[in-house]
């Protein structure tokens, strides 16, 4: 087996480990391109999805994703992250890069951004463990009233401030803030109940 292939196989084995991200980041910090490739394969699709969702254009989404992974390449040594921590960092940075881009550009160009919630929240196979989480978050999002989920969407995916949202919807800023809070708390309550239900089901199964 060629050295490079062996190295890639060994790296791929790392991917199945719990601290995969920390180990991959360490290798990236040492200048290992294969590790950067694996991080991309693990996270690139999510990053691109967020960027495309916010920007609505493939070329711009690609620019943002390239910038994101170059940041990972250059700053990997400063990350001391679990998988969850890295995902959080990644989603925040990609969102912020997109919002910065949106705020710089001509408002006319923004009209192309896709805003159809149903398209973006269509269901996928809930068997995959990641998809289960996705399923739960989608369920949580869809079960809050549309008036609340709409302001969450406008804030998070369209990069609007609460004042801008109030203006667009023709409601008071107080109402927007209140809907944001109720929406997030409603989603949290749903996810907590779901987790509680799963844990009780697991306990019941272990007793049997």
């Amino acid at each position: 087996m060629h050295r490079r292939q062996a190295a890639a196989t060994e790296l791929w084995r790392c991917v199945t480990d719990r601290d995969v991200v920390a180990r991959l980041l360490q290798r990236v910090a040492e200048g290992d391109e294969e590790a950067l490739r694996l991080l991309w394969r693990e996270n690139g699709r999510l990053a691109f999805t967020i960027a495309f969702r916010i920007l609505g254009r493939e070329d711009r989404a690609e620019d943002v994703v390239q910038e994101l992974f170059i940041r990972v390449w250059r700053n990997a040594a400063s990350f001391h992250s679990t998988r969850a921590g890295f995902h959080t960092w990644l989603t925040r940075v990609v969102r912020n890069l997109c919002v910065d881009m949106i705020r710089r550009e001509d408002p006319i160009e923004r009209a192309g951004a896709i805003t159809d919630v149903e398209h973006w929240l269509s269901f996928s196979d809930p068997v995959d463990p990641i998809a289960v989480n996705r399923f739960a978050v989608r369920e949580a999002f869809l079960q809050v009233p549309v008036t609340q989920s709409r302001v969450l969407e406008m804030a998070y995916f369209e990069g609007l401030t609460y004042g801008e949202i109030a203006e667009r919807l023709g409601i008071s800023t107080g109402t927007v803030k209140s809907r944001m809070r109720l929406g997030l708390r409603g989603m949290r309550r749903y996810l907590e109940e779901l987790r509680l239900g799963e844990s009780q089901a697991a306990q019941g199964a272990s007793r049997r």
Partner: protein
Amino acid sequence: MDRESARDLLAPYALGALPEEEARALQQALLEWPEGRAELAQLIAVADALPVALTEERPPLGLEGRIIAKARQRRRPFRSLMIGRRPQRAALRFLPHLLAVGFAAAAAVLAVMLFVEIGSDGVPSGGRWIDLAGTDSAGAYVTYTDGRPIGIVFRGLDPPPEDRIYQLHRLRSDGVRVSDVHFLPRDDGWAAVALVLPVDEMLVGFGITIEPIEEDDPDPSSEFPPITFPAR
């Protein structure tokens, strides 16, 4: 800002929907409001999960290759700790840089002294000493104002090789490392740097590296392990 107004801003903050000025005011209010910080953490956890709900899109073909190619063009990331003397080069080539850096370091020391109360034994008060990991005896003293770090005093730093210089890096709460001021320790190994931060920047720690003075230097940088700010 009163608690009720601050509470109203937690959700917009978690969603990144607060204008900068209000975000700064809220951060200030949160410094002395642990319940608010706890509630904010809960809201942020939900906001962070929102992208997970999206149906995944397929990235354009070849994007992975383009990212790798771009990474190759950029500076290699830092390697792990390597502290020690490097072969010396013609010092005069770097004299202008060193003078500029010396001036910056002196300015930084002065800036710190303006903010930090210096005790009779020469040690600033209102902070805490921590060991500098990766060294035998070096330490750092972080000083705070209103709970925010405002300066770092170093002791026991070895002089860097002649063509190298220390650089401070700030570790932000979002995981990003921001390159900060270059500095040189005095002959006795002491140095001080002021942290001049954007008001809304939340720091969790710092790191220092030893960098080539010339940007096109082929040798990689070397660095100490990052340090988390000690609790006050």
